[in-house]
């Protein structure tokens, strides 16, 4: 595995900006997740690293050496796509062997067998090696598709929303599994997704993209607890952070126009009176929709709190975060 670095990489498609002067470092053994909505530039970044797109300007380095003029094969990266494309007429074993049989690698049979067995073990599909690819469930197919990347020893794995076509339960299981595999193999992964849960639960580092620009890069905890902008603050956390004019509570630092309140920033019992508009039972918690001076506020409270629509409760901020008129964080 290797270090990968982007320096001021820009790529546009005609008038459309794909990515705009992106710089970031992926260290050997890191699990970096690029998070952003459709059109933020996640996939373009991935494709530039893979060599499937050529940036207009900027440098891409793998282990300190520029790969900007290298072909995808020369860059020695492995890509996993959202749509798993397995060879339906081949068995799981043959699908996994396929990348190793390429003329460049030309792996000897005994080593190939050993590799495939190892990866099948890690992915927990050893018992399915002799099944046809078409006889697998969706989750098994996606694991084989990842396995096809894992049998190789590339310098970095590039993954483009590999879990997004699976159902919620399976996604939850595979999240944990992928993180375990990454830790076990010490793999370097760049993973793109629009799903904040995937980003928060798997990443060692998250990069938040907005309109082709990298807004913030840091550990999940860092990004959640110390967002650099309002945009970043709204990308992580469920329910989404509440933002209100600072005048509602007062006591804001100079320059602040908005106060940001996550559920853990809202203390019940004293402060401003709010009306309870709606109560949602999530089971483990209640999601409470409040109205305060015409502003909507959503927060979480303990599941068995006796409360009903129309009740008035008082709230006050506790260690909230503030933003200026442009959405920049004020510390």
């Amino acid at each position, binding site marked *: 595995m290797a270090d990968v670095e982007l320096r001021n990489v820009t790529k546009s498609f005609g008038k459309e900006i794909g990515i705009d002067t992106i710089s970031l470092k992926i260290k050997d053994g890191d699990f970096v997740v690029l998070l952003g909505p459709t059109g933020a530039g996640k996939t373009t970044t991935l494709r530039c690293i893979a060599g499937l797109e050529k940036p207009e300007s900027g440098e891409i380095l793998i282990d300190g050496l520029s790969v900007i003029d290298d072909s995808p094969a020369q860059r020695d990266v492995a890509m996993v796509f959202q749509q798993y494309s397995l060879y339906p007429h081949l068995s799981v074993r043959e699908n996994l062997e396929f990348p190793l049989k390429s003329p460049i690698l030309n792996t000897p049979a005994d080593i190939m067998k050993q590799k495939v067995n190892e990866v099948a073990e890690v992915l927990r599909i050893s018992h399915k090696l002799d099944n046809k690819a078409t006889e697998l469930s969706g989750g098994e197919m996606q694991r084989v598709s990842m396995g096809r990347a894992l049998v190789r020893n590339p310098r970095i794995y590039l993954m483009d929303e590999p879990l997004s076509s699976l159902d919620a339960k399976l996604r*939850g299981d595979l999240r944990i599994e992928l993180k375990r595999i990454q830790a076990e193999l010490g793999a370097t992964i760049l993973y793109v997704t629009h799903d904040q849960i995937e980003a928060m639960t798997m990443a060692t580092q998250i990069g938040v993209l907005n309109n082709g620009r990298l807004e913030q890069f840091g550990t999940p905890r860092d990004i*959640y607890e110390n967002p650099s902008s309002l945009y970043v603050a709204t990308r992580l956390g469920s329910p989404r952070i509440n933002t209100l004019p600072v005048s509602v509570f007062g006591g804001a630092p100079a320059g602040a126009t908005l106060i940001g309140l996550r559920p853990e920033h809202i203390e019940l019992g004293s402060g401003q009176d709010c009306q309870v508009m709606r109560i949602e039972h999530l*089971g*483990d918690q209640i999601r409470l929709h409040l109205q305060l001076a015409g502003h909507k506020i959503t927060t979480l409270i303990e599941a068995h709190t006796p409360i009903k629509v129309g009740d008035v409760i008082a709230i006050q901020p506790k260690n909230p975060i503030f933003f200026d008129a442009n959405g920049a964080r004020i510390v």
Partner: protein
Amino acid sequence: MAQIRIENVRKEFGDFTAVQSSSFTVEDGEFFMLLGPSGCGKTTTLRMMAGLELPTSGEIYIGGEEVGMKPASQRDIAFVFQMFALYPHMNVGKNMSYPLLSQGMSRSDAKKRVYEVAKILGIENMLNKSVSGLSGGDRQRVALGRAIVREPKAFLMDEPLGALDAEFREYMSEELRALHDRMGATTVYVTHDQLEAMQMGDKIVVMNHGVVEQFGTPQDIYDKPATMFVADFIGSPPMSFLHFEGSVLENSKTVKLSGQTIEVPTQRESAQGKLVFGVRPEHVKLSDQSAFRGEILATEYLGTSQILTIKTMNGDLKARISSAKRVNVGEIVGLTFNEKSITLFNEVSGAAIRSDLNLGRI
């Protein structure tokens, strides 16, 4: 509006039993969820209420009248499908007035009624617009409007939000629930999404393999699952199951897991053999004092909280704890449980063992 009562309703398609003898009641004005995985019989049940399928046996009462064998047209209910079908050549207003005019209502009355309903839905400004140019949400509102204008006895909805993306779906589900609160119309809603059922429903029926597994309020179903299927289907992450072999005596207040005595709600029936200790993630706490120990296999940071996967002698479990607590994969931790929240199950039958918790005594 009306009450809907299902009594011993059964539906067979040839050799296949889609719905086994089911009974439950949808009270007047309730927002009622039929929840289960695909193939569980929820849509078949809804279609029998609508009259789109006839039951093999059993009775269906709408507003006290037995309608089981009546065609859909005589039941006075409105069905909203997952794919909202609108007449593409008619504008919004005409799409909505069509059901009224075909019932013989005068044009002026129909117009008035359509305007009233359009106002409830917030689409009164687009009555003259063509439906082809509308956003997904507005199309959905028009489809609802067409169902509402008729003032049916009940609304039956088959995953009406299933085709929408996650963010918009959340928004529409809030709107639908708010609309229901304004109108108070009896609504039966089919979904496979447990969170949607929890958030929107007054009551939930959980179905599996054509059988009603449980019927109750969302919080009751969450806190007091009647079967392992329900415990596993509801909650994200779902209830964790610790497996043990042993016996539970009537009136006992503890069980033994790997030699450790653990408190549970007072049991009201005896059971022995393969048993299961069911605990939800938020009822697990880390405690150095506890001799019941496990190894942290994974941590998932979620901002406000974090989910730990912990390996114990009795199987893996999930714990939801504050994200302020720093823990590491590989660490061995002691575990305690909120004893009031525990449900024991018989592993073979999957049924919950009766206790003060699920009998409603605590």
